[in-house]
């Protein structure tokens, strides 16, 4: 499309004017779609707030689960005009969109209870904790419901990269590691170019351009060397930084050697923030990740019944019957009737519930193992990472089992206490930490973290540790699909089975992310809505 388009009034308009007109006339979603059509923004499966037109007001839809998938389903379906009810096992809404604050209690499977001792305003998000700029569904709920966001500091050049096996276990600054890695690679590739080893791949002109780029990218000197000097110091930092007046003359810092850097493996952490999911800008809700789920919950609170443990999901030609019991204590089974059901219960739980669906969906429900993950939050008397080490937000990575230390991306410079994410584990270490008692997870996170921050010893106050396989309402962190299982079962999982459709991160291609839950939910209820509107006549479902 050319920069100027003809409007229907015959005037010539600029692209900006056109977008402004679209925005005014049809709202942000339409403008977004128009922008995509103009090639100005990344396309997304999210097409703006759902428009489920022509809902049948006599139809009742029962939503199981009050996490992001269930809450957004309830919100959209009621807005469309359906009768909606939501059941959730938990005593609070939000599911894995969860924030733990001072005074909160958490009793894990096995019965160990933790009472959070954090000061007011301090928290950890044991589940999701960041929202990339391209997670349109989540960001749109934040915007529509007025939830303020703040930048999540994904990359911090003054954070640490740490290996127990390199540099004597001394943490290295992220920015220095990156500068040295780029610099040495640039110098090496520069040599290759200068030795005419790339004549087959590039023209002489392009080789000259490449050399120019390498010099700039790698902070090389005029001889294309990566050595101590002003160019490298402007990347990795100074031994004596420039000051004012008669302060000491600046001294460049000394790059580390390439061979040691390669064998340290610290370079592997540089790639994390380059993944699409982690690229800046990336956000967190002010006050805790649960704020978006809570905002949706406020809109549908009257529909949600907590403390209800689903034990059976039945359906017939005429409707759905869900049996549930009180989540805690004794009580008779009760039944909830509806015309349709949107089930967002994690498959780790749903695979244990008696549900009447056809074999393909049954097989799909049972096909997905749940990943282990553990997070530990640690409260310290002061924000020593800011005060002593100039680390404001961001993540330090380590080869110790704790995996990382993440600093709060909020309230910088505040004089009081602070809470760190002191461990975020996956894989074998996550199982090992899950198998520990909560206080042992905290103690182990402290011992390991103190090798990066010795201040841990003096400043620690209290901690909270969540191992997701011990969380009573998920039995694991997220659906860990294999490619093979996904090929075989994913479409069967997502297809409408009679009067039942499933939704959640497990029914998405963005596992573990809230955006997956939201997009899955929107897709599921859109297809369900179409089926309902099409009427009583049997509708052939195409997933």
């Amino acid at each position, binding site marked *: 499309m050319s920069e100027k388009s003809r409007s229907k009034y015959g005037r010539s308009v600029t692209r900006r004017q056109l977008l402004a007109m679209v925005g005014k006339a049809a709202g942000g979603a339409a403008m977004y779609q128009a922008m995509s059509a103009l090639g100005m923004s990344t396309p997304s499966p999210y097409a703006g707030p759902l428009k489920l037109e022509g809902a049948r007001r006599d139809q009742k839809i029962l939503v199981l689960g009050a996490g992001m998938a269930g809450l957004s389903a309830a919100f959209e379906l009621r807005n469309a005009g359906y009768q909606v009810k939501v059941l959730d096992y938990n005593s609070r809404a939000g599911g894995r969109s969860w924030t733990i604050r001072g005074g909160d209690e958490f009793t894990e499977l*096995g019965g160990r209870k933790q009472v959070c001792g954090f000061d007011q305003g301090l928290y950890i998000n044991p589940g999701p904790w960041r929202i990339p700029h391209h997670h349109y569904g989540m960001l749109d709920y934040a915007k529509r419901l007025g939830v303020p966001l703040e930048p999540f500091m994904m990359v911090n050049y003054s954070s640490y990269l740490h290996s127990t096996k390199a540099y004597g276990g001394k943490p290295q600054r992220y920015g220095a590691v990156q500068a040295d890695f780029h610099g040495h*690679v640039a110098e090496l590739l520069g040599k290759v170019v*200068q030795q005419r080893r790339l004549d087959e791949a590039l023209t002489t002109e392009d080789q000259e351009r490449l050399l120019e780029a390498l010099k700039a990218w790698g902070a090389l000197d005029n001889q294309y060397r990566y050595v101590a000097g002003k160019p490298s110091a402007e990347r990795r930092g100074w031994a004596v930084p420039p000051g004012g007046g008669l302060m000491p003359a600046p001294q460049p810092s000394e790059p580390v050697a390439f061979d040691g850097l390669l064998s340290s493996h610290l*370079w592997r952490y540089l790639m994390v923030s380059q993944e699409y999911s982690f690229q800046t800008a990336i956000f967190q809700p002010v006050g805790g990740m649960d704020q978006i789920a809570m905002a949706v919950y406020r809109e549908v609170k009257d529909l949600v019944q907590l403390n209800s443990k689903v034990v059976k999901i039945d359906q017939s030609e005429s409707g759905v019957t869900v049996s549930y019991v009180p989540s805690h204590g004794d009580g008779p089974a009760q039944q909830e009737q509806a015309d349709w059901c949107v089930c967002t219960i994690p498959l780790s739980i749903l695979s244990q519930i008696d549900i009447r669906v056809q074999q393909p969906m049954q097989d799909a429900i049972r096909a997905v193992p749940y990943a*282990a993950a553990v997070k530990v939050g640690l409260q310290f008397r002061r924000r020593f990472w800011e005060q002593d080490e100039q680390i404001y937000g961001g993540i330090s990575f380590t080869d110790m089992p704790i995996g990382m230390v993440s600093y709060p991306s909020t309230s910088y410079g505040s004089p009081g206490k602070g809470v760190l994410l002191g461990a975020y584990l996956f894989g074998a270490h996550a199982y090992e930490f899950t198998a520990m008692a909560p206080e042992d997870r905290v103690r182990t996170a402290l011992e390991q973290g103190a090798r990066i921050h010795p201040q841990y010893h003096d400043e620690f106050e209290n901690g909270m540790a969540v191992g997701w396989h011990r969380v009573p309402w*998920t039995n694991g962190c997220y659906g860990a699909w294999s490619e093979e299982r996904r090929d075989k079962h994913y479409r069967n999982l997502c297809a409408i089975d009679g009067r039942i459709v499933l939704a959640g991160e497990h029914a998405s291609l963005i596992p573990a992310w809230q955006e997956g839950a939201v997009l899955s939910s929107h897709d599921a209820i859109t297809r369900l809505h179409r089926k309902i509107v099409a009427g009583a006549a049997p509708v052939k479902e195409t997933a």
Partner: protein
Amino acid sequence: MKLPIAHAVRRAPGPRRPAAQALAVLLAIASSLAASAHAAEHLDGLEDPNHFVQRDGESIYHAICQGCHMPDGKGAQGAGHYPALAENPRVGAAPYILHNVIHGRYGMPAFGSALDDEQVAAVVSYVRSHFGNHFDKVSAAEAKSERASTD
């Protein structure tokens, strides 16, 4: 900006070897980077963060199984449940337990790639002879044969 490419070649074509070495190093870096992408995704730094180091059955049970089946083997009950391994006659069916450990079952992850045959046999034997269970040990050979069975 005039760059010294042609000049460098005229003056000193240079031995092929250093350049070849440099290229080899760069290629090695590139392939390491590709290999590390998966590890980085999981944000951990161990050489093999997905393999357990414990060797004896009791240690493996304490490192893995008790996370869900609990230290006393009695399982747990929440929105769903973790089955008790204690005094569970199903533990007597060796192929069933081996299969679950190696290939997983429903939400339970597969540990076949995180444990070798000896480790699988050790932990299954431990469960079969503790928590009120009195069943025979299983061998690494049995674990190996169960590993070959399809999921």
